[in-house]
Structures are given as C-alpha cells and as structure tokens.
C-alpha cells in the first residue's frame, strides 16, 4: 500500500536521497579511509582530516547514487534491492542522476580546495571507476565483475593516505590490494546463498556463470592470495608486530573458513553454513585488520 507522501511526483524525500548513498556501505568506506589516514606517516590538522573523510564519504555516496541510477532495472528484480528508492517508485531516475553527478563534483572540489589536488584527482578516478568501469561496463558483461569492481571499494584507504602525504607509496598500495583481494571471497560467498536473485536479474555473477563448485575453488584461491597480501606489510617491515600477529591470525581463520567453503558441495542456500560463516567473518576480518594497522601505527608512534 502506498501513502500520499510516497506518490508525490518529482520530489524525492531527503530520506530517500540519503538512502541513495548506501549509508551502510559508506560506513566501511569511512572506516577504511580513516585507517589509511591514521596509518600514514605525517600529520594532518583535524579539521582538514575531517574534511578529507567527508569528501571521501560524499564521493562514495555519489558513486552509489550513480550506481542505483544505472541499475534501477536490475534492482527492481532482486528481492534484496526492490525496496530502494528508484525500483520502489519513490524517486525518478533523473533526480538520482543529477544528485549523483552533483555530489561527485562537490566531493572532488571539496577535497581539492581543502586537502590537496592529488587526493582530489584520486577521488575523481575512484568515482569514475565505480560508476563507469564497474557499474556501466563490467557488472553486466563479465563474471569477473566483482574482481575488477572490487578495486573501486579499495581506493578509500589509499585516498585517506594521500590526503596526509600527498602521494602513494607501497603501504597504501598494499592496503588497496587487501580490499581488492578480499572482495571476491566476500561477495562470492554472499552470491552463493543468494544465487537465485542474481540469476533472476541476469547478472553474470560467478556462481551463475561458472557454477558453484568453480566459485568455491576460486574463493579459496583468492583467500590464499589475500593472506599473502595481508601479511606482506609485516613481512616487508612496513608494519610492526601487533599488525603481524593480527594479520597472521585473521588470515589463517579466513583461509580455514574459505577452505571449508571450497569443500562444501551443498546446493540449498539454507544448508550453506560455511558460506554464511565466511561472509560474516569477512566483514569482521576487514574491520579487525584495518584496526590493527592503526593500532600498530599508534604504538609505534
């Protein structure tokens, strides 16, 4: 049932505009960007640091709005996304497009004027990558969509780092690589137990195209690469023992859970306990690993 306020034409509510920015995803963006900033050598004035995080968040929100503008047709088919403002009919596509472009321009200008133009250019590229390379180009054309698209979500810590130092060195590249290689196991674990939804929407998600068993093997493979990348900062002397212990313990658990997924042969989503466990742990893994980067840096300082 719709109310009068839901059917108001041409005037999206503030709540729906906010929902368009995918606030839950934004929390991870804010966290990883903040970690990148806090882990960087050097100092940044709290006001400038706050502005940098705000600009990165607005950039992520802009990307999400442009993503939903383009994917309204897909979102309408999937149960998980049917309630979003566009497929639910609470907003027109033009509003979402204008909001996304406006927010993109504003976030990049804010970063450039207040922080530095290197990180502003980096932010602009990350928005372009998510909205155009991932959403428009790759998501509907290749089962590797998540792998390449994962890069879009991997930019925030490197941008946070660049906000402090004005450049990018090996450590932020490794932080980028951690999220990049974390994304496939994280999303494919989810895609395994919501497989039917992605099939219905016609998205070439790996389980749909290559099958569940191939996806499970790839999840395990990526978890091993992730472990190497996650432990690399410690192994290369870029991070201390706190991070070293955290990365080894967390990556071991991640690999064990991924191995369990790799061994699973179940086809019923209700029985996919290993996949659900890995998906839940993957979120904790990323938060804990990035918290360890910051804790390590704080202790060293």
């Amino acid at each position, binding site marked *: 049932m719709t*109310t*009068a306020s839901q059917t*108001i*034409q*041409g*005037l999206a509510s503030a709540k729906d505009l906010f929902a368009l920015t995918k606030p839950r995803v934004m929390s991870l963006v804010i966290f990883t960007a903040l970690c990148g900033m806090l882990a960087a050598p050097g100092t940044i004035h709290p006001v400038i640091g706050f502005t940098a995080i705000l600009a990165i968040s607005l950039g992520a929100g802009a990307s999400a709005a442009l993503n939903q503008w383009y994917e309204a047709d897909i979102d309408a088919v999937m149960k998980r996304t049917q309630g979003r403002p566009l497929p639910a009919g609470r907003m027109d596509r033009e509003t979402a497009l204008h909001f996304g472009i406006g927010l993109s321009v504003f976030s990049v200008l804010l970063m450039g004027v207040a922080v530095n133009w290197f990180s502003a250019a980096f932010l602009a590229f990350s928005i372009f990558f998510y909205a155009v390379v991932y959403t428009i180009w790759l998501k509907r054309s290749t089962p590797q969509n998540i792998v390449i698209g994962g890069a879009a979500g991997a930019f925030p810590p490197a941008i946070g780092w660049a906000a402090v130092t004005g450049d990018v060195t090996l450590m932020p590249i490794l932080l980028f690589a951690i999220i990049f290689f974390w994304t496939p196991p994280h999303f494919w674990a989810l895609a395994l137990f919501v497989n039917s939804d992605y099939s219905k929407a016609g998205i070439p998600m790996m389980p749909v195209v290559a099958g569940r068993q191939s996806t499970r093997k790839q999840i395990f493979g990526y978890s091993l690469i992730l472990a190497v990348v996650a432990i690399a900062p410690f192994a290369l002397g870029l991070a201390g023992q706190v991070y070293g212990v955290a990365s080894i313990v967390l990556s071991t658990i991640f690999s064990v859970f991924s191995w369990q997924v790799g061994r699973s042969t179940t086809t019923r989503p209700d029985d996919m306990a290993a996949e659900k466990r890995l998906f839940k742990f993957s979120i904790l893994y990323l938060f804990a690993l990035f918290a360890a980067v910051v804790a390590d840096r704080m202790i060293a300082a």
Partner: protein
Amino acid sequence: MSDRDQPSTPMSAEEQKAYQARQKHRAIILAALLGFMVVLFYLITIVKIGSGS
C-alpha cells in the same frame, strides 16, 4: 519556482499538503547543510591561513 518543482498531474488536497510538507522538510535539511558547510569552510580557511598555505 521552476516547472520541474510542480507536480505533473493535479493533486488532491491531501497530496498537496504532503507535497508542501516534503518541500518544507527538504528546505530545512538543505538550510542545515548549508549552515554546516559555511562553518566548515570558515574553519578550513582559518586552518589554511594559520598554516600559511
């Protein structure tokens, strides 16, 4: 007010009221955001002047 701000089909009294309430709500939020940005840019300016950049 531009044409886009006007609904494309006639509205009932209830819809008109809801429309105006939403306009007001959006205006209040926009005003609060603008106020926040004014304060933020003031602080950024102070910091930039203080650091000589």
